[in-house]
C-alpha cells in the first residue's frame, strides 16, 4: 500500500495527529467544534466532508442570518407547496400542476474555463429542478461581463455563450430569456447565473430525504472522477496523500448527453413509483448528498464508498467524497424495487450502483474496503454548520456617491441632439440587439415556447389542453444596487415583476441569486444585508414569496468588489397562454399609450452611464404599490383582450421601449411629447412602474376606464404605423426627431457581432 487509510479506529488512537484543517479552509474554532462533535479528532475523510460542507458555498455561514428574513417576512400565500431549504421551491399554479424554479451562480468556474464553467452551470441547476420530481422545461441565463470592448470580455463571452448553448441545446431545453449586461465592475468577475424551471403534477413532488430503515441508497449517472476537487473547498486533498501531491483538476467537464439520459431515466423511475427520496449531486458531491439525505430522513445511513463506480481508479476516499463530477444523482429505493430501478437505468444506459442503506443509528457511517472512515451525526455535517454574524457597516463613500447626482450632467436640448443621443444609446452594448447571443440558443424545442427573448418575459405552455402556462423574467440593475442596495434589490424585483405582468401573467413567486463581493469586507456585507432586507420587504409588499435561491460571494478582483448584483427571478401564471401580450406593435392605427408617471430620474440609468460614464445619486424611486396596480391592470387588460401589445419601460426610458416595439414589428409610429413635460425627461428617464401599450380604437374607452379603476395614469402619445417605416417623435423642443427603422435596426444589430463574431 502506497498510502494508508485514516480510519475512525486510527483517529481514536492518534488524537494528537496534526491535521491540515486550515489548508482546507476551516478556521481553528471550526476545527475544534468538529473535534467536540465527534469526541475525537476527525479522520481525514471526515475532515474533508466537514470542510467542504462548512464552506461558504455549502453552509451559507455568512448569509444565513440575513436570509432568514425571506422566511420571517414571507407573505400570506397558499401557492407555496415547498419552501426554502429544499433543492428548489415548488409553487401551485392550479389545475393540479406545480412548478419549481431556481437560479444559481457558476461565476468563478466560468472565468477559468468559460465553456465548461457555463455548461456545468446549466447542468447543475437542471439537476436541482429534476431532483424535485419535475420535468425541466426551460432555462434562462442572466449574465454579466466586464466592459464590452475589453479583451478579456472577448475571451470569456463567446465561450460562456457557447457553453450555455452547447449544454442547454443538447438537453433539449428551450432558452427563453436572461440578461446580458456589460459593466467594468465585472472585469475579471463575469457572472454566470442560470435559471431552470420545471413542471409536474402535485403528486409527483419528491424530496431529498432518506426515509425507511433498510432502504437502499443508489448512486446513478456518470462515474466519479477527479472533477472539481477543491472547487467547493479551497484546497485539493493533495495534503492527504503521503506519496507526494496529486494534482486534481478544479474544472468540471459537462456531458450534456449523459444529463439528458439522467433526466429521462430519473423521470421514468419517479413516475414508476420506485423512489422514496432523491437528491442531485452538485457542490460537495457525495458528501453533500449522503449527509443531506440522511439528515432529512431517518437520520442514519451506512455507505460503502468502495462501491462507487470510478472513472479514475487512483482516487482516494477523501477525493471521492469531495468530487464534483457532473451528471450524478442519488436515490433512496426500497429493496423490492431495486431491480426495477436498475432495469430502467439499463434501458437508458445509465450506470447505477447500490452504495449503502438507510439505518436507524442516527449516524452517517462510511466504509472503505471494510474499514470505517466516517462515523458522524449527519445533521452536524449538513445543517449545523457554523453561522457568522459578519460585521457590516455603511461604506464611508456611500454618502458622497449618493450626493453626486446626475443633475450636473449636460443634457441634449434640441431635437437633433435627442436624435443623436438615442442612436448612440440604441447601439450601446447594454441596449443593442442581443441576437448574436440568443440565436445560439434553441428556443423552439419541446414546442411549448409561447414567448422567448427579446420579449419582456419568457412564456411556456404547461398544459396543452387548457393553455395553462407560466411566465418568467429575471432582472437586476447593479448600478442601482450600488447607489442604494436596499432599493436596488426592490428595483430588481419591481422590474422582473413588471416584465411578467407585461406579458399578461400574474406574478406568483420569486427566486434570487445574490452576487456580491467578499463577506469579510464590512462594506460588502452591508450591501448584502441591505439587499436582502430590500428584497424581503419587497416580496412581502407584493405578496410574492421567495421560494429559493443562491448566494455567490467573493466576486471581486483584489479588494474591488463587483457592483452588488441581486438578480431576481419572478414567476407568474397565465391561465391561457393564447392571450399572452407580446411586445411588437401589431396593427397600424392602434393608439400608443404610456402607463404610469415619468419623473426626472437619471441616476444609475443608461443615459448617465453611456453618455457620461457617470454613476452617482439616488436611483429611481420604487413604489411597489404602483407596480402592483400597473401589474393588475396589464393582466386584466390581457384577460379582457383590450390591448394588442405591451412593453415595459426600463433602461433608457420610453424612447428605447418604443424603438424596441417598432423594431420587433417592423412597423414605426408617430408619437408626440405630451404638453408641459420636458422632452428629454419624458423620453429617457428611468422612472419605475411604467409600460407602453397599444390599444385598438375599438377598446380604447374600455381600456382607459379600466386603467382609471386601477388608479394607473394613462397618456395617449401616438399612433402605430402613422409614420410608415419611421419612428417620429414630434414636439421635441419645437421640432421633430425622426429615425428610420432601417437605421435603428442597423445600429442595434451591428454592435455585438462587431465585438464578438
Amino acid at each position: 500500500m502506497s498510502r494508508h487509510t485514516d480510519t475512525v479506529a486510527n483517529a481514536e488512537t492518534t488524537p494528537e495527529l496534526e491535521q491540515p484543517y486550515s489548508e482546507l479552509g476551516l478556521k481553528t474554532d471550526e476545527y475544534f467544534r468538529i473535534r467536540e462533535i465527534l469526541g475525537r479528532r476527525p479522520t481525514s475523510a471526515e475532515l474533508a466532508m466537514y470542510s467542504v460542507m462548512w464552506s461558504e458555498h455549502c453552509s451559507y455561514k455568512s448569509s444565513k442570518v440575513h436570509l432568514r428574513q425571506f422566511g420571517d417576512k414571507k407573505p400570506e400565500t397558499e401557492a407555496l407547496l415547498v419552501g426554502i431549504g429544499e433543492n428548489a421551491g415548488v409553487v401551485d399554479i392550479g389545475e393540479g400542476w406545480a412548478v419549481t424554479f431556481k437560479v444559481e451562480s457558476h461565476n468563478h468556474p466560468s472565468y477559468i474555463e468559460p465553456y465548461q464553467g457555463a455548461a456545468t452551470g446549466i447542468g447543475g441547476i437542471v439537476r436541482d429542478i429534476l431532483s424535485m420530481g419535475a420535468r425541466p422545461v426551460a432555462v434562462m441565463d442572466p449574465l454579466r461581463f466586464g466592459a464590452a470592448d475589453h479583451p478579456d470580455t472577448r475571451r470569456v463571452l463567446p465561450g460562456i455563450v457557447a457553453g450555455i448553448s452547447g449544454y442547454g441545446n443538447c438537453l433539449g431545453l428551450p432558452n427563453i430569456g436572461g440578461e446580458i449586461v456589460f459593466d467594468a465592475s465585472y472585469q475579471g468577475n463575469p457572472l454566470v447565473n442560470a435559471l431552470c424551471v420545471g413542471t409536474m403534477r402535485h403528486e409527483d413532488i419528491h424530496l431529498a430525504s432518506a426515509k425507511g430503515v433498510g432502504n437502499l441508497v443508489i448512486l446513478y449517472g456518470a462515474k466519479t472522477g477527479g472533477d472539481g476537487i477543491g472547487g467547493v473547498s479551497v484546497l485539493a486533498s493533495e495534503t492527504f496523500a503521503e506519496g507526494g501531491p496529486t494534482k486534481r483538476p478544479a474544472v468540471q467537464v459537462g456531458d450534456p448527453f449523459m444529463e439528458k439520459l439522467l433526466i429521462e431515466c430519473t423521470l421514468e423511475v419517479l413516475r414508476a413509483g420506485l423512489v422514496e427520496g432523491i437528491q442531485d449531486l452538485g457542490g460537495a458531491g457525495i458528501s453533500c448528498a449522503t449527509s443531506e439525505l440522511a439528515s432529512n430522513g431517518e437520520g442514519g445511513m451506512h455507505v460503502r464508498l468502495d462501491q462507487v463506480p470510478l472513472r479514475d481508479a487512483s482516487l482516494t476516499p477523501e477525493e471521492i467524497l469531495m468530487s464534483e463530477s457532473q451528471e450524478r444523482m442519488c436515490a433512496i429505493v426500497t429493496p423490492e424495487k431495486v431491480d426495477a430501478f436498475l432495469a430502467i437505468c439499463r434501458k437508458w444506459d445509465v450506470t447505477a450502483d447500490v452504495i449503502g442503506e438507510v439505518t436507524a443509528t442516527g449516524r452517517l457511517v462510511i466504509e472503505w474496503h471494510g474499514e470505517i472512515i466516517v462515523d458522524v451525526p449527519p445533521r452536524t455535517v449538513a445543517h449545523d454548520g457554523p453561522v457568522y454574524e459578519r460585521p457590516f457597516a455603511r461604506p464611508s463613500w456611500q454618502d458622497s456617491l449618493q450626493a453626486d447626482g446626475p443633475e450636473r450632467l449636460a443634457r441634449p436640448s434640441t431635437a437633433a441632439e435627442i436624435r443623436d443621443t438615442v442612436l448612440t444609446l440604441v447601439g450601446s452594448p447594454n441596449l443593442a440587439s442581443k441576437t448574436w447571443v440568443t440565436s445560439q440558443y434553441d428556443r423552439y424545442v419541446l414546442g411549448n415556447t409561447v414567448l422567448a427573448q427579446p420579449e419582456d418575459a419568457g412564456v411556456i405552455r404547461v398544459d396543452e389542453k387548457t393553455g395553462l402556462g407560466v411566465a418568467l423574467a429575471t432582472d437586476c440593475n447593479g448600478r442601482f444596487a450600488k447607489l442604494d442596495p436596499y432599493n436596488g434589490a426592490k428595483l430588481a424585483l419591481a422590474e422582473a415583476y413588471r416584465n411578467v405582468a407585461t406579458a399578461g401573467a400574474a406574478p406568483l413567486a420569486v427566486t434570487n441569486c445574490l452576487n456580491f463581493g467578499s463577506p469579510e469586507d464590512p462594506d460588502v456585507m452591508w450591501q448584502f444585508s441591505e439587499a436582502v432586507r430590500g428584497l424581503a420587504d419587497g416580496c412581502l409588499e407584493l405578496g410574492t414569496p421567495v421560494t429559493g435561491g443562491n448566494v455567490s460571494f467573493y466576486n471581486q478582483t483584489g479588494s474591488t468588489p463587483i457592483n452588488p448584483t441581486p438578480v431576481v427571478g419572478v414567476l407568474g401564471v397565465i391561465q391561457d397562454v393564447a392571450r399572452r401580450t407580446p411586445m411588437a406593435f401589431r396593427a397600424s392605427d392602434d393608439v400608443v399609450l404610456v402607463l404610469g408617471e415619468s419623473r426626472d430620474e437619471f441616476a444609475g440609468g443608461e443615459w448617465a452611464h453611456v453618455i457620461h460614464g457617470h454613476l452617482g445619486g439616488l436611483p429611481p424611486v420604487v413604489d411597489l404599490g404602483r407596480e402592483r396596480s400597473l401589474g393588475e391592470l396589464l393582466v386584466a387588460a390581457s384577460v379582457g383582450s383590450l390591448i394588442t401589445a405591451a412593453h415595459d419601460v426600463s433602461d433608457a426610458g420610453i424612447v428605447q421601449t418604443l424603438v424596441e416595439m417598432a423594431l420587433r414589428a417592423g412597423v414605426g409610429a408617430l408619437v408626440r411629447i405630451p404638453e408641459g413635460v420636458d422632452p428629454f425627461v419624458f423620453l429617457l428617464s428611468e422612472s419605475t412602474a411604467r409600460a407602453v401599450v397599444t390599444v385598438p380604437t375599438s377598446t380604447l374607452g374600455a381600456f382607459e376606464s379600466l386603467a382609471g379603476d386601477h388608479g394607473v395614469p394613462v397618456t395617449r402619445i401616438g399612433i402605430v404605423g402613422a409614420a410608415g417605416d419611421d419612428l417620429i417623435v414630434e414636439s421635441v423642443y419645437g421640432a421633430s426627431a425622426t429615425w428610420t427603422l432601417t437605421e435603428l435596426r442597423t445600429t442595434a444589430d451591428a454592435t455585438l457581432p462587431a465585438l464578438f463574431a
Partner: protein
Amino acid sequence: MARVIVDVMLKNEILDPQGKAVEGALARLGLAGVTSVRQGKSFSLELEGDIDESRLAQIHELAGSLLSNPVIEDYVIREDVR
C-alpha cells in the same frame, strides 16, 4: 514551406465525453478489448519559410494559449518538414 502539427488532448484526469461515446460505439460494433478512447484535436499549420527557434517558441506560446486551454488540455507539437 514547413508544416507543423499541433495535437491537443484533454488531460488524462479530465472527463472526455466524446471519447467515452466512441468507446461505447466501438464496443457495440464488435471491436473487442478497447480499454479507453480519448478524442483530441489536431491543427495542421502550413507555414512559409523555415521554422527557426524563435518561430517555434511563438508557436509553442500560441499552442498553449489559443489552441489549447492549459487548465484542461495538453498539447504536443509535431514538426513535419517535407
